[in-house]
């Protein structure tokens, strides 16, 4: 049977149906294009100019706006650009350039035409250049003097009487000239030409343009202020020059990295003019309907909405002030704005977009960027998640128990130290590890485990653990948390929390090692042993004041109370050993039958002893006896209840009336801490007694359940499993969105990785480093997003892969091992190849989840698809269209992914295996 038929036969939904559904969705979205919506109006309004000639330049002069165009067209407006009148023009050539300064207005164009309107005058003075060159640009250096530039490096200066040739032999066409004042000016031209003059245009010197634009046409330059000059190229580069210390503007030019265009140095569109409104506010124009505004010196450039057709060629902008002005274009088109062209929200109105096409045109760039950004994090997330998933699943299915480690591998525990010692030399490292392994195997073979050594080790660990706990509890107490608030300790003091975990781990391990007698058998433990130890720890950890103001821990920490501290330590040890011995049946034979009642009795005595010791501790710490008397009374009362209960056989049975009473009382006291219900305070109880009653009750419960044996198998603990489980528990029990925010804003992982990473890669230019530096490390949110997605997905994928591994019959592992493969080899060669095939469908599910969950990266400011959608809506208010387009984009991505996975599944199908196999 050919495998080709698989796809056709087992397709759940016929291909035709899928296509119909997709087309229907698309049609639905497109059909409802002119929905009523909150919308934006273009910041520009089309004004009647009265001409159809191309308008090539515009200028604001005194209280008038002027527009000039082909064949000497001149228009003027006295009302800020709303209505226009044609001016009788003395010129016939195309008027290309204009300038307004020092109260004068100058316009120039083809054949050397230069017209000047001095201040106040209403007439044009003809000051054309005798050389009759086509003037590209003109600048006033005073009321009556000008500088003009043209093709082939032509520079002409007019001093009020005559034109002088000031060219310095530049070969290239000069395209733009701008003067700050009477002295300082800049010229720009083809092939990256920049010239500067400091004497009003007589002498010109070269300036260096950034290498990237050394072959481009710098079509416009503006010497805006003493601290800022801008220039643009016809390919959309924005150049900026600032005053650097004592170096004047115009010397040092840099290319603006335009953040809104992915940090590119080019806008990617053709520009033909710019109008600088302030140090940071610039309007750009270009052919094909391009008008854009930047309010931060070119960092973010936003294309503006237009009320006219998309392909109007804009030629220039003239602004009266920072907000009001006009833009002129071919075909006599004049647009007016009083908001520097920015879109205005106009409330509930029918959209002004013109059509869906224009909206798509406007938004598609941002959506594409978002889609690319989404795909970037998804790919990394999948890779990282899969890798982590495989590693974790191997850890979770590892059969190595504590017993195995002790028996065969104990010397291999030194490997981490070997790694540290040999971190710099890889060769030495591998040989050392190999020899350590060999030695470990040899020792496992020849020397049996030294039981007393293990016991001693256990004792040492337990002491170290208790010590660590006691030491760190001061820090915990310093957090000023009360009772249940202590669940937040991991965040309040992570170091202390780690220490606590370490301490508990050491104590538990110590307790495991301590009773070692050469055998690794499971133990059967009577339950009463555990609560007292736990209670002791809780009591100490709680740090509740034993008496007076200071807590037990506090007293312990005081150096001058050395003897006291030692006493407490000894007491605790005593208690621990007493509880240990309590579990041994031999002890009970001393008092008769070793049955449950006697156990309960013993327990009651033990608890009384406990109370007495506490009473004594309180006494020697010099506090109020009466204050603690009720403490003692409570303890005695519960002990009496035990004894009574034991004698009457009320324990271990259904007759738990006195127990219930005490439990209820304790609960009331406990809740008093949280809900401030002061019943006990009324009868003289306080914090300590509350805790001690709790202690008593817990012991009581233990007595009730005494005689129940549980089987503990501490040597069967699988440390690798535990590590993996810690990881997966954390990531699967917290929401992804919170993980994103925690990792990015809390841990600041992006910053933590970016800074050292960039430092390491500085100066390196090989492809990998460049890719890492510009592609990955450039954006902090990107780094955080990859990690949040990858780490989270890894936890889920681990469970999937583990499930797949578990689905492989155990016989496969047996078969592999019986031919001599070790565990890892069998996993790699036999189990995993089969497991991976099984887990492709559920992993596919997980990957689709990953793609869709990537939308959560929005909360950390990563510019992925959903965030771009939000931004578009914020600007355009087209909610339905935008989200519709976003949904379609996600659908396409996940559908493609699903197709790929389906293909993968078919390709890796094992003949003869599974339902539906050949």
């Amino acid at each position, binding site marked *: 049977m050919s495998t080709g038929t698989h796809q056709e036969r087992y397709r759940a939904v016929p291909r035709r149906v899928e296509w119909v559904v997709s087309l229907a969705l698309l049609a639905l979205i497109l059909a409802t294009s002119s929905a009523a919506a909150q919308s934006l109006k273009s910041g520009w309004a089309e004004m009647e100019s009265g001409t159809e000639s191309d308008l090539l330049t515009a200028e604001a002069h005194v209280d008038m706006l002027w527009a000039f165009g082909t064949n000497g067209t001149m228009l003027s407006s006295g009302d800020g650009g709303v209505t226009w009148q044609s001016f009788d023009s003395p010129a016939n050539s195309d008027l290309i350039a204009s300038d307004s300064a020092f109260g004068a207005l100058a316009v120039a164009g083809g054949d050397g035409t230069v017209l000047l309107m001095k201040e106040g005058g209403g007439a044009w003075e003809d000051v054309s250049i005798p050389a009759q060159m086509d003037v590209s640009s003109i600048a006033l250096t005073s009321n009556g003097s000008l500088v003009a530039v043209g093709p082939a490096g032509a520079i002409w200066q007019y001093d009020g009487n005559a034109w002088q040739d000031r060219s310095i032999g530049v070969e290239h066409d000069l395209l733009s000239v701008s003067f700050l004042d009477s002295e300082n000016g800049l010229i720009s031209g083809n092939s990256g030409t920049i010239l500067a003059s400091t004497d009003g245009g007589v002498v010109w010197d070269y300036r260096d343009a950034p290498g990237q634009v050394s072959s481009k046409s710098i079509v416009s330059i503006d010497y805006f202020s003493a601290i800022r000059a801008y220039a643009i190229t016809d390919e959309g580069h924005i150049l900026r020059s600032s005053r650097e210390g004592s170096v004047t503007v115009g010397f040092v030019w840099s290319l603006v990295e335009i953040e809104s265009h992915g940090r590119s140095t080019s806008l990617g569109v053709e520009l033909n003019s710019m109008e600088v409104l302030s140090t940071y506010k610039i309007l750009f124009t270009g052919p094909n309907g391009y008008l854009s505004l930047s309010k931060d010196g070119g960092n973010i450039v936003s294309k503006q909405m237009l009320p006219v057709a998309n392909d109007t060629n804009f030629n220039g902008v003239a602004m009266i002030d920072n907000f009001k002005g006009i833009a002129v274009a071919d075909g006599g088109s004049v647009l007016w704005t009083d908001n520097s062209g920015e879109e205005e929200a106009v409330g509930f109105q029918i959209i002004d977009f013109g059509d869906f096409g224009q909206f798509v045109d406007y938004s598609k760039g941002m959506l594409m960027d978002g889609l690319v950004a989404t795909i970037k994090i998804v790919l990394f997330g999948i890779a990282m998640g899969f890798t982590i998933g495989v590693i974790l699943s191997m850890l979770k299915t590892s059969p190595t128990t504590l017993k195995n480690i002790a028996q065969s591998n104990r010397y291999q525990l030194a490997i981490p130290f070997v790694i540290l010692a040999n971190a710099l030399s890889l060769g030495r490292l591998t040989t050392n590890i190999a020899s350590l392994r060999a030695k470990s195997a040899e020792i496992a*073979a020849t020397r049996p485990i030294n039981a007393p050594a293990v016991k001693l080790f256990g004792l040492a660990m337990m002491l170290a653990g208790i010590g660590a706990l006691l030491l760190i509890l001061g820090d915990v107490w310093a957090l000023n948390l009360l009772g249940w608030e202590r669940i937040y300790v991991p965040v309040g003091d992570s170091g202390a929390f780690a220490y606590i975990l370490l301490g508990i781990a050491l104590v538990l391990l110590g307790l495991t090692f301590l009773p070692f007698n050469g055998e690794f058998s499971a133990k059967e433990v009577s339950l009463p042993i555990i609560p007292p130890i736990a209670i002791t720890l809780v009591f100490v950890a709680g740090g509740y004041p034993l008496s007076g103001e200071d807590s037990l821990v506090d007293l312990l920490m005081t150096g001058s109370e050395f003897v006291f501290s030692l006493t407490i330590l000894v007491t605790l040890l005593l208690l621990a050993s007493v509880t240990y011995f309590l579990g041994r049946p031999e002890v009970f034979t001393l008092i008769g039958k070793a049955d449950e009642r006697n156990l309960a009795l013993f327990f009651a005595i033990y608890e009384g002893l406990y109370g007495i010791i506490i009473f004594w501790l309180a006494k020697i710490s010099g506090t109020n006896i009466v204050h603690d008397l009720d403490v003692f009374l409570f303890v005695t009362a519960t002990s009496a209840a035990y004894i009574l209960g034991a004698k009457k056989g009320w324990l271990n049975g259904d007759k738990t009336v006195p127990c219930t009473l005490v439990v209820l009382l304790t609960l009331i006291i406990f809740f008093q801490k949280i809900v401030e219900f002061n019943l006990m305070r009324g009868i003289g109880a306080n914090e300590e007694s509350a805790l001690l009653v709790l202690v008593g009750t817990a012991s009581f419960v233990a007595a009730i359940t005494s005689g129940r044996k549980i089987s503990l198998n501490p040597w069967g603990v699988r440390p690798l499993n535990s590590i993996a489980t810690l990881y997966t528990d954390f990531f699967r029990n917290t929401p992804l969105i919170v993980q994103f925010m925690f990792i990015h804003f809390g841990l600041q992982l992006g910053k933590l990785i970016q800074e050292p990473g960039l430092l390491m890669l500085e100066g390196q230019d090989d492809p990998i480093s460049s890719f890492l530096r510009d592609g990955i490390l450039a954006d902090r949110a990107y780094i955080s997003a990859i990690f949040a997605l990858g780490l989270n997905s890894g936890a889920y994928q681990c469970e999937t892969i583990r499930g797949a591994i578990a689905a492989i019959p155990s016989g*496969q592992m*047996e*078969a592999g091992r019986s*031919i*001599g*493969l070790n565990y890892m080899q069998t996993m790699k060669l036999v189990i995993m190849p089969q497991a991976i095939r099984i887990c492709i469908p559920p992993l596919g599910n997980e990957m689709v989840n990953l793609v869709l969950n990537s939308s959560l990266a929005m909360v950390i400011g990563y510019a992925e698809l959903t965030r771009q959608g939000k931004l578009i809506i914020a600007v355009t208010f087209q909610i339905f269209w935008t989200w519709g387009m976003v949904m379609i984009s996600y659908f396409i991505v996940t559908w493609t992914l699903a197709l790929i996975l389906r293909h993968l599944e078919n390709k890796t199908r*094992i003949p*003869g*295996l599974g339902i539906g196999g050949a």
Partner: protein
Amino acid sequence: MPEAILSVKDMEKTYPGGVHAVRGISFDVNEGESVAIIGSSGSGKSTVLRCINRLIEPTKGVVRLKGEQINTPAAGINEVRSRIGMVFQSFELFAHLKVLDNITLGLIHVRRMSREEANEVARKVLDRVDMLDRIDAYPGNLSGGQKQRVAIARALAMKPEVMLFDEPTSALDPELIGSVLETIRGLADEGMTMVVVTHEIGFARDVADRVIYLDEGVVAEEGPSSIIDDPKTERMRRFLSSIND
């Protein structure tokens, strides 16, 4: 007396939970001998077999292979297992690999042969079990008997010192049993040391040199294969008659 290839002494196995599967079993297997272990279900047959190559760890007892004890933590378990061949009741072929690769997996990764050498050995051993014509097939496309023969070939390729068979024909259709038993008989004739746990009493009688009858975790009767026709103990007699009915 030549030293036994395989020696099991006082083996006991108690599963956690309290089941005493094996309660003290000792037997030896000499070179070239084929031993059949028979008994009813739950008598501990499979457990004993799995304890020999340590797929299950015996709670007590000593297992020696060629004189060396192999059930200590010291013994290199993987190396030991590569010297013992095992054939399972459920075949346990590697389903994602072709028949050829099933055989060569162990040769390449455990015996560290080159691919060409491994292929050579694989061909020879497949020819011996008469499966050379299906060398490029996937296990999923083979019948039960064919799969078991490939499994035998897989174990044989490692040139084991002793072969263990865990109810090799129990999962097969009656028509297919014959071919597998033929193969095993061939191996016995060639002098392979083997321990076969089986329900095929006829096979045990005809092919095995010795028969061990297990009942409730102990050796109830042991002796040459003639004891099948002439059981010495009542228990075995009852067992055999219950099968024959």
